């Protein structure tokens, strides 16, 4: 954890996010500072600690068909659609 050697452009690419050159430079410095700060967790002895498993136990409902949003309502915010389907640029050649 010691070296905050984050490659901002590479990580932004993983996150499907374009960055301007100015943004990339600013984030490089700011994120290095933040990673330097969180590196203090190295000081904590966690050798005998189990990881946090969530504040509560998941309380799953029975898997039965219930009422759900009508298709037109569920799609009402899609920026481009046709015949109850969402339209996107061609993905497969």
């Amino acid at each position, binding site marked *: *954890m010691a070296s905050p050697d984050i490659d901002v452009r590479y990580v932004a690419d993983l996150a499907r996010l374009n960055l301007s050159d100015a943004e990339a430079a600013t984030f490089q410095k700011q994120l290095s500072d933040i990673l330097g700060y969180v590196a203090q967790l190295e000081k904590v002895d*966690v050798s005998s600690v189990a990881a946090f498993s969530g504040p509560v136990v998941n309380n799953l409902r029975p898997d039965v068909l219930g009422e759900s949003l009508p298709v037109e309502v569920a799609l009402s915010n899609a920026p481009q659609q046709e015949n109850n389907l969402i339209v996107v640029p061609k993905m497969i050649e």
Partner: protein
Amino acid sequence: MSSPLYTESVASLRRKLAAKEITAVDVADQLLARIEQADGKLNAYNFKPDAAKVRAAAQAADLSKPLGGVPIAIKDVINVQGDPCTCSSKILQGYTAPYDATVIKKLREAGAVLVGRTNMDEFAMGSSTENSSWGVTRNPWDTDRIPGGSSGGSAAVVGGHEAFAALGSDTGGSIRQPAALCGCVGLKPTYGRVSRYGLVAFASSLDQIGPFTKTVEDAALLMEVISGHDPKDNTSVNRPVPKYTDALKQDLRGMKLGVPKEYFISGIDPEVEAATKAAIEHFAKQGAEIVDISLPHTEYACAVYYIIAPAEASANLARFEGVRYGNRVKNPKDILDLYRSTREQGFGPEVKRRIILGTYVLSSGYYDAYYNRAQKVRQLIKRDFEQAFTKCDAILTPTSPTAAFKVGEKTSDPLQMYLADIFTIAVNLAGVCGISIPCGFTKSKLPIGLQIIGAQWGEENVLRAAHGYEQTTEWHKELPGI
């Protein structure tokens, strides 16, 4: 001269409505006029209430219900069917909520009149409400200063008397810190107490919805309405909802209140420290027993949070890619360009920073060093609280290390901004509950908040302690100049 109606608490409004001294339409009209008068200065509402709709809802309100005729504002991160829900982000401009969040359904069933959507830091990421595509919200006590965040709009409308109560969400302090800075009451319930269905997710293991109110009694009233199990949120817990207002009937005598030494550190503003210590003495004078406790991993909470919250956010915000909802960039080259350019144009800098940070700590080669280690330290923080609550009923700390800071003061240094939440973050990490209540003012008349932390499901102790303090002090009666 009596105070204007818009300064009343929910409980007092309810009494006047029940006694027919006023009508729900009078209440709505006076509040609408107040919003017209004050919101130009505060910019607390992203969407101000539609006057005709609010009057019609007030007219139709069933006054026999627990919140019948009471206008309540909603943070712009909670879905209200047919209304916008922008999360103060450009990427969601034009979005219309297709359904009601569970808390909204509950408020409607309780007779509340919904008024407007309040400003916030984009996707609830921030501590000042400056990260908003709708512009910064101003603090009602000093409009050169920030209201806190991320629920700064909800805090400003309650502290500035532009709403009788409001809902916000709290992931690392986003209800309690702005409540402290705006001089009102803000409660972060135990994780699992209030359904998150319909709350736009930021960090799902930390997010909780909670109330902003003018009094502790009002916070108890709202908690009775919004709490409870919801099959639509698998982390909401099936556990009876107590009558929280009953907890207010007991005074402070016999309560054991813990004071953790780790919360009185260098960097805390001397006026905040003095007000907190005076509040602790006040509790002792009222018959509470003050006990010294230790929460030894406190100093690591902020570092743990800024690994776990961005990690969860990077996954939650993957859904904003311009396909299913929200804005889509025009004429993308291909599908990847559609995703990347939509996100570049739609998200502000703080959201981008956290997405990159979260993606990094979850990426191959770094996951163990950052995310796994943080989850282990989180477990230690949770254990600290479990041990502390074997010695006391509730814990007293400052809510925020400083009073409200100036607009622009911390925007260029994200790390300094993150440290504004240093006293509130551990509560979310441990999944316990906490409230902030007014406990004084700085010399320049900025509100100071006291945080009272309760164990998991410890809301009754928190409300009892908060109410006992409030009823024997006058801070909550002060009105801002706005």
